[in-house]
């Protein structure tokens, strides 16, 4: 419960369960800290105060003149009853282990039966119990059936105090929907378990609602025969009734005059009580007990350090066998591995060539050699085609000339492929389409060349991918081969220049 200074208004109900229209501000007692530990302690000690003493007879077990036979008689040394002629003679006496002997530590009536409790503690417990009776959750958890009552705390018109007939009281309880609680009492009527049955405590039942009144004008007589109902005057509040069993949260029905008197009885934190000399309500330890909101509050969060997350341990992989683990530790290892693979391939090739020479066989070209040859042929074809087209269209040539240097530069900066279409667009006519495509091709090339530029650092990703680098070179000319087929001559020239530049890299 958050103990804000806000005191909501409680509406008062008449005996027909209609809100009268008048309201009372909630007395400060209901905002007091609820301390079940104090309530339990005080209840424990208070409950001891209505005990009746018990003890055994002080003579019990000593009404004999027994004396020990001593040793040498082949019997235990326990005092034995004197005389003869009866069963009793010679039997053990006095000891707690003997039949008919006195018990160990006979109970005495001057045992400390009652307990005194500090007044402030008693008041604290009382105040806590009253506060808890205003919390629906606590009352429900105590077991009272309060689902249908109009409001909690339930305050009723003073007319109830004038009831004289039990029938009236029953009707009233029914009307304010407290009857369910009393039905529960009826249902809980049973025999006590244990020896209490034969000690005049035969039957037990649940506790029902507690009616607290300001003035008894017949009310007690009306309600007292209803099982489970208890009645107290507000000036004589009893913790044993407000927190039966030491547990807070009894269902309480207040009358209006009783409810209004609470402020005088207990005061508020600002005003001392009028009826209890110098008494003030207890101060809570925490002003704001809403833990969820506290933990989300900025003021608290800003001061906390960051939570320490448990790092799961990483599995160790042997870098000498696992290439990924190796590259994580030593990126240069890729270069070494790649070199090793290449040199081994080369040396193998050399051996084969040597043997072939000796045997006089011509070897098949390696994949790389075959690709290189293809590349050359394609280039030758492209150049010838371009020459043929040059013979047809001299105009396009002139306008393409200013762009080559720029396009060449563009090719070197890979990420700026976007600009080339714009520059290409300057040329009109058929050149309009072609340069755009030239731009595209250049952009593609740019990307490819960009890739190649990064290759030394990134080729290493998979050492066996060394074939990709020449593959990329092959791709670029392949694209160029397509593009010149559609383009004008000059872009093809540029592409040729740029492509020649790339293998040099």
């Amino acid at each position, binding site marked *: 419960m958050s103990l804000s200074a806000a005191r*909501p*208004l409680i509406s008062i109900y008449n005996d027909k369960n209609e809100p009268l229209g008048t*309201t*009372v*501000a909630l007395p400060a007692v209901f905002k007091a800290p609820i301390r079940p530990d104090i309530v339990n302690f005080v209840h424990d000690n208070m409950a001891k105060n209505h005990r009746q003493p018990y003890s055994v007879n002080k003579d019990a077990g000593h009404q004999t003149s027994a004396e020990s036979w001593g040793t040498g008689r082949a019997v235990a040394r326990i005092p034995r009853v004197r005389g003869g002629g009866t069963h009793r003679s010679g039997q053990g006496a006095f000891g707690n282990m003997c039949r008919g002997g006195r018990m160990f530590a006979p109970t005495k009536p001057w045992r400390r039966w009652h307990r005194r409790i500090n007044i402030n503690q008693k008041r604290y417990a009382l105040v806590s119990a009253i506060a808890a009776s205003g919390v629906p959750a606590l009352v429900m958890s105590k077991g009272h059936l309060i689902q249908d009552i109009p*409001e909690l705390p339930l305050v009723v018109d003073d007319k109830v105090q004038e009831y004289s007939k039990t029938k009236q009281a029953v009707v009233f309880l029914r009307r304010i929907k407290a009857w369910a609680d009393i039905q529960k009492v009826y249902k809980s009527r049973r025999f006590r378990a244990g020896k209490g049955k034969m000690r005049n405590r035969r039957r037990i039942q649940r506790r029902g609602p507690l009616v607290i009144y300001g003035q008894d004008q017949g009310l007690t007589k009306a309600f007292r025969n209803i099982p489970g109902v208890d009645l107290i005057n507000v000036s004589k509040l009893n913790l044993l009734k407000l927190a039966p069993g030491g547990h807070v949260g009894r269902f309480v029905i207040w009358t209006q005059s009783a409810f209004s008197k609470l402020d005088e009885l207990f005061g508020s934190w600002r005003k001392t009580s009028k009826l209890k000399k110098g008494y003030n309500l207890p101060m809570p330890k925490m002003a704001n007990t809403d833990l969820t*909101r506290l933990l989300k509050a900025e003021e608290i969060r800003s001061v906390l350090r960051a939570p320490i997350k448990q790092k799961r341990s990483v599995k160790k992989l042997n870098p000498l066998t696992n290439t990924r683990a190796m590259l994580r530790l*030593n*990126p*240069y290892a890729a270069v070494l591995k790649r070199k090793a693979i290449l040199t081994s391939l080369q040396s193998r090739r050399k051996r084969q060539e040597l043997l072939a020479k000796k045997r006089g066989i011509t070897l098949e070209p390696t994949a790389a050699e075959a690709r290189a040859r293809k590349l050359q042929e394609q280039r030758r074809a492209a150049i010838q085609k371009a020459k043929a087209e040059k013979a047809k269209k001299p105009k396009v040539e002139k306008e393409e000339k200013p762009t080559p240097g720029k396009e060449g530069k563009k090719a070197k900066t890979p990420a700026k492929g976007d600009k080339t279409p714009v520059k290409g667009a300057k040329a009109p006519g058929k050149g309009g389409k072609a340069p755009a495509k030239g731009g595209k091709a250049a952009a593609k090339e740019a990307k490819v060349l960009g890739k190649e530029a990064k290759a030394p650092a990134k080729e290493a990703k998979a050492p066996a991918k060394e074939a990709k680098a020449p593959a990329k070179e092959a791709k670029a000319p392949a694209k160029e081969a397509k593009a010149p087929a559609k383009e004008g001559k000059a872009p093809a020239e540029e592409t040729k220049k740029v492509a020649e530049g790339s293998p040099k890299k």
Partner: protein
Amino acid sequence: MVDTQPKEKPAQKEKTPAKEKEEGKKEKKEKRRELGKKLPAVPESVLKSRKRRDLAKAARVNVALKKRTEYYKKRKEIFKRAEKYVKEYHSRERDEIRLARQARNRGNYYIPGEARLAFVIRIRGINQVAPKVRKVLQLFRLKQINNGVFIKLNKATINMLRICEPYVTWGYPNLKSVRELIYKRGFAKVRGQRIPITSNAIIEKKLSKCNIICIEDLIHEIFTVGDKFKYASNFLWPFKLNTPTGGWRKKTNHYVEGGDFGNREDKINELLRRMV
């Protein structure tokens, strides 16, 4: 059942109870009407957490970006260093050979420098060890059988090795041995814990002061016994090696007597191939 929890009326302490009642009632009725019309609002806590999350995300993105750029810079640096070291090792090797050849050409003799790095392996167990030997083995961090450490060779350590000779075998590791040991069996001492060296960050965190930021740096420092050899080798947890496949010759004799303990100079590398 009507809830009597306070409906946010904070500044009402001064008002008289009568006024309170009236105003309270009115406000309650108004609120009920309002609530009937409005759509359910997003709870404040949700809004708060959203805001907090967005701020945190923005901050995180910045930090992540910075970290990434730094990471790439470091990767470049590590690459360059590794390259440099490969060249250095190669040139060292060739230097030795070159000097020897030069000397031979002139009819002279080239005496290579004495070894500066040793790898020491404990080959005997825990029980019945003489106190002096026990202490020396403790100082070398050889607390278990088949534990190995890198040791810088100087007068002091050589004398220590002499004291514990029957309990250890040692020799001069070559580059391959050093690499294999550190890559395969390399564990770091981080906050008193034995942590596997799975990334350069572990090394950098501890040894950045010694200008060692990656595993290749570490290997270089160990192999070419540098200034910060002490820190580098102390950073490494003592190596836990397997018993050699193929077995020992005779642990109770010195290597020169046909056994295993003592200085076996270069032959330690063969042993390490079988133990790592």
